């Protein structure tokens, strides 16, 4: 898994704090321990030396009451003594015996060298043993000091250091998180600016004045990039509008001239009439093509202005089909039947009526060209979404079924691509389509906040389903039925008409 930069910075800070606290804690622990131990050792040596001296005095005096002697020496010190005298060992307490003295130490001391050793006894407790040879009386004096209090001190210190280390590490992580947030904040500005630009707000720029001094370079080059992008888009839009004007002018002339010829059509010889028919049909097709291409390039440039009107959906579909039939080109397979689910009666949608009509015309033409004609057009309720402000959360669906062989599931997503002809490409010769029809359907539906998909109809043909958000479920009042009583107080000011 790849970690994000924020997580990595946090981890580095945490790790740094951990290493630092382990290092500091370790050094403190071992230094303290070293000094404490050294102090205890020298104290032990001093005490042992003084005790050994007492023992020597007593032994020199011939006192061999070892138990009493050792008891006297030990009294109140918490230490235990072991005395070797004439190859026999005497102990001051039951808690020690001759084997308590580490073998190495015993050997060294018995050989005549004073020595000190720190070790853990059989019970795991730390002890310090000091051995002093007393050659004058052929004895060796050992004293064992308990270091468990030191052990306790050290474990408290260790725990304290551990807790401090853990806290430091957590603080390091928190600092890292804060720092990474801080560091990434300018990037989130860039992200939101880029998002706004991608969303079409080309005037968005980063504020150079407010930028972090270290990021001025990024800010400047980001703004320069957007400037260039905007210039290119505007140049493209200008080019499109120039092309639009240049192409439309000759088309207008052609169309008007053909119109003149058509007025006099009956007076033309039959061959010329047929030629005129071809001319006028293909002129119409050419006009459609040019307007489709321009529509598409405008959508690409993000310069689509749309005029929304709130209309009754079933009336919209019925009118679009009636009028659309007249706007279709090529062959025809009869007028399709429109079936309206009673549930959607009165539902209103916000659309650009002429765009919607184009959508239905394109779908009907597609059905004629590739699907053997439209069988049914149905209007019904769609799935229910979460309601949002200004939206009822309901969708209305318009499905267009054809009598063709259906569309292979693998091809379904592709049919909305431009110039995609798929398995129907072999039939191009008769087609009058521009290859943009379905792509425009998708485009138009998206600008109207709707969607389109294709599935198969129960009869095996293709079913194109348009879905649109419902503005209101209405109360049965259609706006085209007239004579709606005006006593409603739902009056608002004029809405912006070119929204």
């Amino acid at each position, binding site marked *: 898994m790849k970690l994000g930069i924020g997580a990595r910075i946090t981890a580095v800070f945490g790790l740094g704090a951990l290493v630092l606290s382990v290092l500091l804690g370790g050094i403190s622990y071992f230094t303290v321990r070293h000094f404490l131990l050294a102090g205890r050792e020298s104290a032990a040596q001093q005490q042992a030396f003084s005790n050994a001296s007492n023992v020597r005095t007593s032994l020199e005096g011939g006192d061999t009451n070892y138990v009493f002697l050792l008891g006297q020496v030990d009294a109140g010190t918490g230490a235990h003594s072991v005395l070797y005298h004439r190859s026999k060992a005497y102990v001051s307490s039951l808690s020690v015996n001759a084997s308590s003295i580490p073998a190495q130490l015993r050997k060294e001391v018995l050989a005549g060298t004073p020595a000190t050793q720190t070790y853990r006894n059989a019970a795991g407790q730390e002890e310090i043993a000091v051995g002093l040879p007393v050659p004058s009386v052929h004895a060796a004096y050992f004293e064992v000091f308990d270091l468990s209090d030191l052990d306790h001190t050290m474990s408290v210190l260790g725990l304290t250091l551990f807790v401090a280390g853990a806290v430091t590490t957590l603080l390091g992580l928190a600092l890292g998180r804060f720092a990474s947030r801080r560091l990434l904040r300018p990037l989130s500005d860039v992200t939101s600016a880029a998002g706004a630009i991608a969303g079409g707000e080309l005037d968005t720029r980063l504020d150079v004045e407010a930028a972090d001094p270290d990021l001025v370079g990024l800010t400047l080059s980001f703004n320069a990039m957007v400037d260039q992008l905007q210039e290119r888009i505007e140049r493209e839009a200008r080019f499109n509008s120039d092309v639009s004007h240049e192409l439309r002018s000759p088309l207008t002339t*052609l169309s008007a001239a053909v119109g003149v010829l058509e007025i006099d059509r009956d007076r033309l010889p039959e061959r010329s009439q047929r030629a005129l028919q071809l001319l006028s049909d293909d002129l119409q097709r050419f006009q459609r093509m040019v307007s489709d291409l321009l529509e598409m390039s405008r959508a690409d440039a993000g310069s689509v202005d749309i005029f929304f009107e709130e209309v009754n959906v079933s009336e919209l579909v019925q009118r679009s089909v009636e009028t659309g039939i007249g706007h279709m080109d090529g062959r025809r397979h009869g007028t399709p039947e429109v079936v309206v689910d009673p549930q959607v009666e009165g539902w209103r949608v916000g659309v650009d009526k002429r765009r919607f009509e184009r959508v239905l015309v394109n779908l009907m033409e597609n059905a004629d060209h590739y699907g053997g004609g439209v069988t049914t057009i149905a209007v019904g309720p769609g799935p229910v979404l979460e309601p949002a402000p200004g939206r009822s959360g309901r969708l209305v669906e318009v499905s267009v079924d054809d009598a063709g062989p259906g569309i292979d599931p693998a091809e379904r997503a592709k049919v909305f691509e431009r110039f995609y002809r798929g398995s129907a490409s072999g039939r191009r010769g008769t087609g009058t389509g521009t290859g943009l029809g379905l792509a425009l359907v998708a485009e138009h539906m998206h600008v109207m906040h709707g969607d389109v998909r294709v599935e198969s109809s129960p009869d095996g043909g293709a079913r194109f389903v348009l879905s649109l958000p419902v503005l209101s479920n209405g109360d049965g009042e259609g706006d085209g039925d007239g004579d709606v009583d005006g006593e409603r107080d739902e009056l608002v000011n004029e809405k912006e*008409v070119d929204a």
Partner: protein
Amino acid sequence: MSGRILVVEDDERIRSSMRLALEGEGYEVKDAASGEEGLDLFAEAPTDVALIDLMLPGMDGFECCRALRRSSAVPIIIVTARADTHDVVAGLEAGADDYVTKPFVAKELAARIRALLRRARPAEEEPGALTFGDLQLLPEQGVLRRLNGEEVHCTRTEFRLLCELAASPNKVLSREQLLDRVWGYDYFGDGRLVDVHIRRLRTKVEADPAVPQHILTVRGMGYKLVP
């Protein structure tokens, strides 16, 4: 049907073809290659309809519309390259009555002109005189005036629209109904025509056009006139 039409279009070939097509429909055509020339021609001999291209060299189509509108109530059709731009609304606000987009079909243009000419003549069924606010509408005389006798000038389309609203006071008329009755459009007519004309009408009829008292919008439904 006959009538005289002024065509202002800078492209010579389009101008010639429009002349041919419109003469074929029985109109008498005067054409001009620039806005200035068009205004001169109109001043010499007013026509029944003016057809103005928005993209003109020198004085542009909007300016030409405004200049023409200052002196005359002649029906104006603007010719625009695109329907879905601000141009249409701007042209309508400059005083145009209707628009066609290039490339237009000659038959469609002829139909638009017919609708405007029909409307420019007195309608058959007119509502009786109606008084609202301090205004008096006299449909049969084609006059809108204030109660103090001062005449309010409006174009024929504005007047026709007002008459349709006045024919059924307090009833909501949808955009589609108004488009059909005033402009002769079907269901797919451009609702912006109605909206802009209503806005223009309000500036003449309402005391405060931003807070209309007589010509009211019923959201999602249409418009109604409240005397």
